[in-house]
């Protein structure tokens, strides 16, 4: 139980389907951990359990030494959902200002977060009029307001152009180097190369927990995409 996040024998059922089956894993503190797996492998459900909004059937999730979802963690854990969860009928700045007040952060953090996600020029724009990628960045900026110790990001780079994707991964790297624990889900294998550790999920179970180098080594494939396929099919 030395991880920033540790999950033990977690079982979750959603809509009658067993989405996570006795899942156990651990996420090391201050590292950038990628959560990879095909659609429907349980990535989002695992993240919801970690931030404490998922009803779980059995098992334990401990974050920073506290049970997931405990009140103290609401200050220390940031979560960005897959679909941008921001108010379309507010401007970008108004959105961030509201969340900053909820998190008890000063106004200056809003500008900082806007800078990080490259939205300074669009700050006064109504959020509903932004493109999908821009809205996703507003949603991401919200989670950066209070510099949480643990940041859980559900496919934060989906639909973003390559330049932006590179910049955001650079931001994730900077945050991890600064001591933040990041858990980032993706189903794009090229993003796996940017992570320190990888957790590979399939059908609600942990397929492997290793580093990108170990994944290449174990499968003999240089391309992580191929390596993942090999591992997934080999285990089937």
């Amino acid at each position: 139980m030395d991880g920033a996040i540790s999950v033990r024998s977690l079982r979750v059922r959603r809509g009658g389907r067993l989405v996570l089956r006795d899942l156990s894993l651990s996420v090391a503190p201050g590292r950038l951990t990628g959560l990879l797996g095909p659609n429907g492998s349980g990535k989002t459900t695992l993240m919801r359990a970690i931030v404490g909004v998922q009803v779980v059937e059995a098992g334990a999730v401990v974050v920073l030494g506290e049970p997931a979802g405990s009140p103290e963690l609401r200050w220390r854990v940031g979560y960005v959902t897959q679909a941008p969860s921001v108010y379309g009928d507010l401007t970008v700045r108004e959105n961030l200002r509201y969340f900053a007040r909820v998190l008890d952060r000063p106004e200056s953090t809003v500008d900082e977060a806007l800078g990080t996600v490259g939205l300074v020029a669009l700050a006064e724009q109504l959020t509903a009029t932004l493109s999908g990628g821009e809205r996703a960045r507003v949603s991401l900026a919200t989670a950066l307001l209070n510099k949480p110790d643990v940041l859980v990001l559900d496919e934060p780079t989906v639909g973003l152009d390559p330049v932006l994707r590179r910049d955001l991964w650079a931001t994730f790297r900077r945050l991890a180097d600064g001591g933040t624990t990041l858990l980032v889900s993706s189903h794009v294998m090229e993003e796996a190369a940017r992570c320190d550790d990888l957790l590979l999920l399939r059908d609600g179970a942990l397929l492997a927990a290793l580093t990108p180098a170990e994944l290449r080594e174990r499968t003999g494939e240089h391309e992580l995409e191929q390596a993942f396929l090999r591992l997934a099919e080999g285990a089937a």
Partner: protein
Amino acid sequence: MSLRVTTATARRVLLQLRHDPRTVLLLVAVPCALVALLKYVFAGGQAGAVFDRVGGPLLGVFPLVSMFLVTSIAMLRERTTGTLERLLTMPLAKLDLLVGYAVAFALAAAVQATLVSALAFGALDLHVRGPTWAVIVLAVANAVLGMALGLFVSAFARSEFQAVQFMPAFVLPQLLLCGLLAPRQEMARPLEVVSWAAPLTYAYDALDRVTRGVYGGALVRDVLALVAFTLLALALGAVTLRRRTP
């Protein structure tokens, strides 16, 4: 609960309203148009007297209905867009959110009820025996009750289709039972008993008493019941708001 988060939420909800001028216009214009219509559907010698009798109570019912609809949809939207889930992972008490909504919509309701009352007592020449201010205060209280009920029932709606149908399902029966159409004492006993449990009964009763200039303990009881139902609806709203969902 935190004052900071509650006021931030109220400001945010008002900002959202400000970005939607058409909704604000509808919130004010629809009850105004309905009260005007009410005045002119009554014709003949007794027309003025009938308008004076039902006009006062209905000044409260129209804002109640519109606030019920607007808040139940607003809260449902908060659920379906994921902003509710995000807020619930943050240091925000459930009552911060509900009271924030309540404060924002109460302010909107105050503007709405005041303008509708101004129209009714001014251009439409509505006469009540009690003080005008009491009618306005009760109309605002009605709107706040409608808002609290809307917040509560939104917990049971999974879609906008369901949410809008809660209005006729939840509010119209109360309107039939509240005493506006028929005196409650003359209803079949079971219906009268049900009417005692309906919040709208007290809302109607209080306005009816002020309209007729009848005060006393019964009016105090009505007002207390109105406040109690509002608080109860908010409390139930907080209970039905779950941080963890399946």
